[in-house]
């Protein structure tokens, strides 16, 4: 059953068109990832879906609720984890969760029970009475998530919930989200870390410059790569010798199978082991020096690179 349907979403800020016609849908119980580099338009898209501001054009439906026209109706069913920490620093984790729970309409013993349960989920029961301002970045992020799930939302929307935290907290958060999803909560997760999206999401949309350039399951996206791995050769003076290298490689590979990036030569191939020695040999013939060789299995990073010619992270 389709839970969320987003059609031809656009948003302009003055001259700048941040989102240029985004279309996707999310099924109930699914976990959907929105992967894109900084400034791709992830937050802008998310903010329209959560009803924070209306789109310039396009439609958003949650079940049959028109989010653009009735944001308050939709917001009851959506939990949002904003990109920034949206908590009162001078209040404790307990007080914050109680406050947000009340604002969502919970009260009495139901509220207390829910706050305790959420503290358990985010693993902060023992620090509940401490002020948020005394927490580490990772702990704050966890409370930030906790505040979004108090009212049992059907759809949990997370905007880069792991930005700038230590690996341990990050793992904890990923585990938590995975578990929530397994218990039936539908999740939309944005990130510019492909590992997170690969780990969590059944379906993925890749967004760049306000446009979804590819979407599908991880498997489908990998197929776009025709299952080709990447061979990354870091070469001294690759730029100066690009013409020479080009000439040597042209005999062995087609244009589409290799590209230059920064000080690297990248070659796409289904069976990297077979061509590696020949490749290294050819490149050294041009008189350049290879400083490292790396083989990467097909992943979202390579899909993005393949589609845009750029890395996800710069």
């Amino acid at each position, binding site marked *: 059953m389709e839970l969320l349907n987003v059609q031809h979403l656009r948003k*302009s800020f003055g001259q700048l068109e941040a989102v240029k016609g985004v279309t996707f849908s999310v099924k109930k119980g699914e976990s959907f990832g929105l992967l894109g580099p900084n400034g791709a338009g992830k937050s802008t898209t998310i903010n329209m879906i*959560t*009803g*924070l*501001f*209306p*789109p*310039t054009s396009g439609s958003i439906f949650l079940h049959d609720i028109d989010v653009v026209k009735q944001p*308050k109706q939709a*917001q*009851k069913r*959506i939990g*949002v984890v*904003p990109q*920034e*920490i*949206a*908590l*009162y620093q*001078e*209040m404790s984790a307990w*007080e914050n969760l109680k*406050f*947000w729970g*009340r*604002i*969502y*309409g919970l*009260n009495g013993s139901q509220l207390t029970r829910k706050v305790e349960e959420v503290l358990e989920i985010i693993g902060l029961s023992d620090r509940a009475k401490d002020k948020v301002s005394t927490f580490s970045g990772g702990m704050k992020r966890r409370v930030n998530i906790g*505040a979004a799930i108090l009212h049992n939302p059907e759809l949990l929307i997370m905007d880069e919930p792991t930005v700038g935290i230590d690996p341990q907290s990050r793992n904890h958060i990923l585990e938590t989200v995975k578990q929530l999803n397994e218990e039936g909560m539908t999740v939309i997760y944005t990130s510019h870390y492909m590992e997170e999206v690969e780990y969590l999401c059944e379906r993925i949309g890749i967004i760049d410059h306000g446009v979804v350039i590819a979407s599908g399951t991880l498997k489908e996206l990998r197929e776009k790569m025709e299952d080709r791995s990447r061979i990354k050769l870091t070469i001294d003076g690759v730029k100066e010798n690009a013409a020479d290298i080009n000439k040597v490689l042209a005999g062995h590979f087609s244009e589409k199978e290799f590209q230059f990036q920064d000080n690297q030569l990248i070659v796409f191939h289904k069976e990297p082991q077979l061509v590696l020695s020949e490749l290294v040999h050819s490149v050294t013939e041009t008189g350049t020096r290879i400083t490292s060789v790396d083989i990467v299995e097909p992943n979202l990073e390579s899909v993005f690179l393949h589609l845009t010619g750029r890395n996800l992270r710069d």
Partner: protein
Amino acid sequence: MSFWWLARKDLLLTFRDKKAFITLIAMPLLLIAILGAAFGNLMKDEEVSIKKFTLGVTDLDQGVLSKVLTDEVFKKGMEDQIKLQFFQEKDLLQKIKNHELEVGIIIQPDFSKSLLSGEETRIKLVSTPDPGVKPIIVQSVVEQFAQTIPIQTMLAAKQETGAVQQESIEPKDLIKESTLSKKTKPAGSFQYYAAAMGVMFLLMTVVQGVTMMIREKEEPVYQRLQLTNLTYSHYLLGKMMGLVILCFIQALIIIIGTNLLFDVNWGSSISGVIIMTFAFVVNACGLGMLAGALIKTEKGFNVAGMLGTQIMAALGGSMVPLYIFPDWIVSVTKFFPNGLALQTYLKLMSGAKLTEILPAVAGSIALGLLFLAIGVIFLVFERRGKYA
């Protein structure tokens, strides 16, 4: 109900902030005390600039002291401020009724006798419903006169048994002496300043509250607030409620504090003072909410807030006494929360009853709610405006 939780959260955060807490409670009393100490001089300079007005007098006493009060104190001593006219009681009341005269006093038959024997005396103060600060001036002069006379007469009596020597009671000295040498406070003037300062402090608290509100608007929590069940009307109502409670607490502290510490008499109608205080706070906070809804950045508000309160405080009578302004300005400033509040407090201080100030209370609350409503409408339209 969610607005109540928002209000409660704001109160909690304010009371946790030690600096805010001290500014709220201790500062007003401190400043009023400092001003009170410096007060005598302040008033002397300003008395010169009171606009001259006519005081109607009915002297039923025709005694020694009523003559001193009317001829020496009012006529000669306050020549620059007051023009004296004598009437029969009936005519005086008629003139006031017809608004031909704004303030009058009726000196009761036993005035001199009672004063001389140290008993309580009575002078009836009559005025049009809306005379501004004039009755306060008259009242304070009469009170000071009544407080000083027994001492003066006792001193005179010691030296020269027999009749009171009129020459020894220089009216100007009378005022000065009661201000400087005796322990009694110049009630009328100090009353004025307590009310004026109190009102200004509340304005400043509103500015403080709105600053916090705008600061919150610039933070991610505001985004989260918008993503909950909270509607714009509940949001602004909650914000206002928190600030109203805060201001009301502060106002009560100022009123009770000045009363206990400096003997400031806020009038005989306690319910009137409380209800007016509440109404004023609603009015001022409503205006604050409107500003908080319209203005987006703390930087923007710092300028607008400072300027706005300074102008309101100055014209509303918190910096210089109201009576130096022409009457039309005094009338116009009734549309400022602080202007209306100060004028109503003065009325209460000069003995007005609860029923007499109800129009001001109603106007004050209505204005506050109107401001709030405009603020909500603005927020709703602002969101729609983002659809572009």
